[in-house]
């Protein structure tokens, strides 16, 4: 109670603290209604800002998703020019599984290899007629865990793999892994940089927009000071209003983005060469959406708090 009395002071008066909080919310909503134009402008600005943010996130999420998809293909193959029998395979597999980074180990027999090759030559299978399976090597295919799919990690893995006795000839697409790694690193770096700039710009835009809405009402702030309102009493409705603007702006941005990307996912197939649904395009994950909304509210709060700091400070 001591703390409450300190905060609300004599202001809580006969209306009580609950009445006071009710008043703050009522006042904020009335303020929005009575300053509809400037509030609408603020919300539109915030919406546009968050649209940029979420569009960026959408792009990033999809690129990252594509990268993950490609990195699935990172695979280490160990070739043998003869078939392994069941015992040999399971003994080898057990040893390989103890290596850090191993995901799965599979065996491709000479027969299976030929079948695969045949499938690739669709339509020209006749070329392989009469070719015995022994022409192709048998192999172990090792998939790596996601964290081990960069070129350095693969290299290190392969050198450890080679120390196992009875291991055959090891191959992996060095060049391809190198490029994938480069691409992923570049994307993450550019993403962080661009994301940082966008976040800063958006924070700046939002806090300035809110500053304008508050500045347009400095008479109100002045008058409240002159009739003896405490700083807390003056600030509260503005803070609530700012958070409301941030919330609405972020929400609206997500709704627009969801609608646009829904339309794109469902209809783009008719004019694009690929079907976006099949290409596995993603919407921003739910946690990111929640984070965007939270960021909107936070930006609104910080924006109003810093702007109020300017206007509410007399003695």
């Amino acid at each position: 109670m001591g703390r409450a009395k300190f905060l609300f002071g004599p202001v809580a008066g006969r209306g009580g603290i609950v009445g006071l909080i009710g008043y703050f919310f009522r006042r904020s909503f009335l303020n929005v209604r009575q300053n509809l134009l400037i509030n609408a402008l603020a919300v539109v600005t915030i919406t546009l800002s968050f649209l940029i943010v979420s569009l960026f996130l959408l792009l990033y999420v999809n690129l990252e998703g594509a990268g993950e998809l490609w990195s699935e293909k990172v695979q280490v193959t160990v070739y043998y020019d003869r078939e392994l029998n069941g015992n040999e395979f399971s003994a080898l597999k057990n040893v390989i599984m103890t290596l850090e980074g191993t995901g799965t180990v599979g065996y491709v027999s000479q027969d299976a290899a030929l079948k695969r090759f045949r499938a690739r030559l669709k339509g020209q299978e006749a070329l392989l007629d009469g070719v015995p399976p022994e022409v192709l090597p048998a192999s172990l295919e090792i998939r790596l865990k996601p964290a081990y799919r960069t070129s350095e990690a693969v290299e290190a893995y392969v050198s450890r793999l080679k120390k196992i006795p009875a291991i055959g000839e090891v191959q992996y697409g060095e060049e391809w892994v190198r490029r994938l790694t480069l691409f992923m690193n570049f994307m993450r770096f550019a993403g962080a940089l661009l994301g940082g700039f966008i976040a800063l710009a958006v924070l700046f835009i939002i806090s300035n927009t809110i500053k304008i809405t508050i500045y347009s009402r400095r008479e109100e702030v002045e008058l409240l000071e002159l009739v003896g309102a405490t700083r807390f009493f003056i600030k509260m409705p503005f803070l609530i209003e700012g958070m409301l603007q941030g919330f609405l702006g972020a929400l609206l941005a997500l709704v627009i983005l969801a609608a646009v990307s829904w339309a794109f996912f469902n209809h783009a197939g008719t004019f694009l060469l690929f079907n976006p649904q099949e290409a596995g395009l993603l919407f921003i994950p739910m946690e990111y959406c929640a984070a965007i909304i939270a960021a909107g509210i936070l930006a609104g709060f910080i924006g109003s708090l810093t702007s109020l700091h300017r206007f509410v400070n007399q003695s």
Partner: protein
Amino acid sequence: MIQLHNVSVTYQQDVCALHGISLMVPKGDFVFLTGASGAGKSTLLKLIYAEIIPNRGQVIIDSQNISRLTRSELPPLRRSIGIVFQDFRLLPNRTVMENVAITLEVLGLGRKEIVERVTRILTQVGLEQRMQATPCRLSGGEQQRVALARALVNEPKILLADEPTGNLDDENKARVLAILKEANCRGTTILVASHDRRLIASSHKRAVVLERGEIREVHDGAR
């Protein structure tokens, strides 16, 4: 009680608005402040509600020195003072009702009580028909009465009125004067800045005449 001891106010280091003013207004008194335009009437009132701080001298309101107020002491002081600003300072986006309610909201009263008291005071100043209008729809005189209602609705200990009759016809002047006198009868100390000699003469109250920032004479008002 309002006390000024040898008070000087200088704006921007060179405009001397008040010079060595000493004045005492006892509790429950009714005093006019008069003098030519630019004599320093508004400045004197601003000292009392601590919008400005004197460069020299002391301003003491109910034993509180306004130069020594802490951040937390200022709002309670202002809540006990009703002010009619020379430029009204009504909020253009709010209705007459809401404008008057502000002083009660700041006190933290409940909604029902606020509506009751605001309705009562607006009826008293003759604006019960205009409660839902916004200030820009009102005439200058009506706006002035809204400002008066806002200053009086919380029954302040002190009322400071800067030209509260400036835009009014004789009938409404008399009405405003009657309202001020009634508040005074309930114990409110009243300080009115006005050029209106006839109004001052007809009120039979004490009048302090300012001239270029100094007190020239004090009429004691009684016949």
